[in-house]
């Protein structure tokens, strides 16, 4: 292709995911469907056990199941989806990968697959019932930690291939602004590379030597702090691909333009800065960290809310402008004009609605004093089920609706579109009920990560059990939704082929021709600011964990 073509023309020429890249995307997506079924089934069983309605056979433990649920959904499902969707987005917006870039994607895929299988084997044999947060000094089999390290390193390979594709575009079209989707994927990838440094150091230098018996004890505070340095950025790593869809895909599904290219880039840059130096807000009630550093990270956490508000604004700006263009009058009439029969819109839209209480809950959790009341109660579980478990996953479903047939050369039929709508509404009802019950039970003190218990007949525990029964009802609806999803996704890939494949919708922006804000694509500046904030937030707390002579902890296997 001639290098003289302006990227905006290229943008319109390049309207599909390259066929070879498509295979890689599809391989990742098949893991997503598989993980959804396994992890979701585990989740449903958990709600039944906690309600006291079911006991596991064959000596399977509740916490074994909980570990499986966490690892398979929070790590495996999301990682494979994110890699697949980002590769598709880059191939669609910046153009096909070259062989080297694609090979890196495949190496990543196989490493992630191998790691997943080994981790699953460790969980299945009850060698790793330590949850996906692997809190030391509970000590799993060394293979569990090694497997998780391999999964993370696998993502690095895939991410490296993606970043190379992005930077190759930049070199080929020097001076032009990069396609928005490719920029967004790159922000998420760079954020990922920085935030996973903490957890990989912890796994490689703490967990693996300790679980192999090379060292006897582990510095628990340090391991937790390094984990959460990654653990909160992880939630934004899940969220940003959903935002990619909200900013770029959804407007095109409506048949209109996105609100602002510059605003979208700016909000992603803010996520890059503020996703990482905030992990200590997960550790507000624990010893080993001074109140000052907890407070500082609370302030930084609040900064992350700003780009979320920007996102909310631009989405509803698009919805309202679009509705008015279609002739809507009055204050809320435009709402009716939205494509309520199109699953590609309804799925992410339901997700956006969940994000309103989800975001409010997030502000509550980050507020130190209120965190005190909800920390480690099932409120928190309710919170992340209406964030990652609804806005993020419903948007992923919405993406899979068009991405699977796009790659396999099929179309969304009317019947499959309707299935998508059923999936959305069933999921919304089930998740709404389950997470509401979790929030209320949490406010009454019910702990998270706990199997069924009457707590010695305490009155308050009876009250919790009532809420747990409601959670089981919600869990049942969610399982029905998962069955619908699995059948839907398989049909989207295996139905009759069509001459023209389903579109991968990519909107242009209202300010498409305006140049980007100056430093937004200056990666050197972006990375320096990111690392600088990370150092401010973490240097002192981590230094103290080394200098204060905290006694190390021996490993325990208490399950």
């Amino acid at each position, binding site marked *: 292709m001639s290098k003289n073509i302006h990227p905006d023309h290229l943008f319109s020429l390049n309207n599909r995911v390259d066929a070879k890249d498509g295979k890689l995307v599809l391989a990742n997506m098949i893991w997503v469907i598989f993980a959804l079924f396994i992890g979701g089934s585990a989740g449903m069983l958990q709600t039944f056990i906690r309600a006291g309605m079911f006991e596991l056979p064959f000596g399977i433990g509740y916490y074994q199941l909980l570990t499986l649920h966490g690892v398979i959904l929070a790590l495996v499902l999301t990682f494979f989806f994110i890699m697949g969707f980002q590769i598709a987005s880059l191939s669609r917006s910046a153009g096909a990968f070259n062989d080297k870039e694609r090979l890196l994607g495949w190496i990543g895929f196989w490493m992630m697959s191998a790691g997943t299988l080994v981790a699953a084997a460790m969980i299945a044999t009850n060698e790793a019932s330590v949850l996906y947060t692997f*809190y030391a000094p509970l000590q799993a089999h060394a293979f569990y930690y090694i497997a998780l390290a391999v999964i993370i390193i696998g993502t690095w390979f895939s991410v490296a291939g993606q970043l190379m594709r992005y930077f190759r575009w930049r070199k080929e079209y020097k001076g032009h602004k990069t396609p928005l989707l490719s920029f967004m994927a790159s922000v998420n990838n760079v954020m990922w590379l920085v935030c996973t440094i903490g957890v990989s150091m912890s796994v490689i230098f703490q967990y693996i030597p300790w679980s192999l018996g090379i060292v006897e004890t582990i510095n628990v505070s340090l391991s937790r702090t390094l984990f959460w340095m990654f653990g909160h950025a992880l939630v934004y790593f899940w969220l940003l691909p959903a935002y990619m869809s909200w900013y770029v895909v959804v407007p095109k599904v409506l048949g209109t333009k996105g609100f602002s290219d510059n605003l979208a880039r700016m909000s992603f840059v803010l996520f890059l800065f503020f996703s990482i130096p905030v992990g200590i807000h997960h550790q*507000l*009630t624990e010893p080993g960290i001074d109140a000052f550093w907890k407070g500082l990270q609370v302030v930084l956490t609040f900064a992350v809310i700003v780009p979320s508000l920007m996102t909310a604004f631009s989405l509803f*700006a698009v919805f309202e402008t679009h509705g008015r263009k279609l002739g809507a009058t009055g204050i809320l009439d435009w709402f009716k004009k939205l494509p309520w029969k199109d699953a590609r819109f309804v799925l992410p839209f339901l997700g956006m609605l969940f994000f309103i209480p989800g975001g409010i809950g997030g*502000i509550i959790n980050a507020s130190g004093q209120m965190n005190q009341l909800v920390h*480690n109660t099932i409120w928190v579980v309710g919170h992340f089920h209406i964030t990652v478990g609804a806005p993020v996953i419903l948007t992923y479903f919405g993406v899979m609706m068009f991405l699977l047939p796009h790659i396999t050369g099929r179309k969304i039929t009317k019947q499959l579109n309707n299935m998508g709508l059923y999936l959305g509404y069933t999921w919304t009802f089930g998740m709404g009920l389950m997470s509401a019950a979790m929030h209320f039970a949490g406010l009454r*003190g019910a*702990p998270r990560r706990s199997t069924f218990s009457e707590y010695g007949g305490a009155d*308050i525990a009876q009250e919790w059990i009532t809420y747990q029964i409601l959670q089981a009802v919600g869990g049942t609806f969610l399982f029905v939704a998962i069955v619908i999803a699995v059948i839907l996704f398989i049909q989207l890939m295996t139905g009759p082929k069509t001459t023209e494949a389903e579109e991968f919708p990519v909107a242009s922006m209202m300010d498409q021709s305006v140049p980007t804000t100056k430093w937004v694509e200056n990666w050197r500046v972006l990375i320096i600011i990111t690392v600088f904030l990370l150092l401010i937030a973490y240097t002192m707390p981590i230094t103290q964990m080394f200098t204060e002579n905290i006694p190390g902890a021996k490993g325990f296997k208490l399950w």
Partner: protein
Amino acid sequence: MHKFEKIWMSVGTGSLIIFLVILGVSAVHAGHTPAASGIETINPEYVREDTRFAEPGLHESEDEEFDYNLYFVASAFSYEPSEVEIPQGSRVKVQVATTDVVHGFQVVNTNINMMVEPGLVSTYNTNFDTVGEYLIVCNEYCGVGHTDMTSTIKVVDGGAEDNE
């Protein structure tokens, strides 16, 4: 920037700043700093040999700020003491240490909720003003018997002096 965008972002960012000011005032002025902050070390293998935790339970405080020190030892899967009585209105410094893995220490229906980690002492200063029975639960996964890990605080009528 669009006018509505400016309004929206100003209101949004403005309310975040108000939230942060409230948090800050509450922390600095009212002393509501995060629980268990700071570093006080203890060897997890010798918790019971440590003078602070040799006899878990309620002890008169030597510190003027408090009436009592309340020591709890957490280990898989129980707390010591398994029940404790506290006179209503007492100002208490609650300290908890673990002999093995990470545990939670949540006194249901109160603000007491903190993590307990091996190697460190977790501290929370509080007043017990309302008579009643309070369930303590472990709210951090610690192993197969996690939900068996409970204790009870009974806040009883009258000061310590009034009892025998």
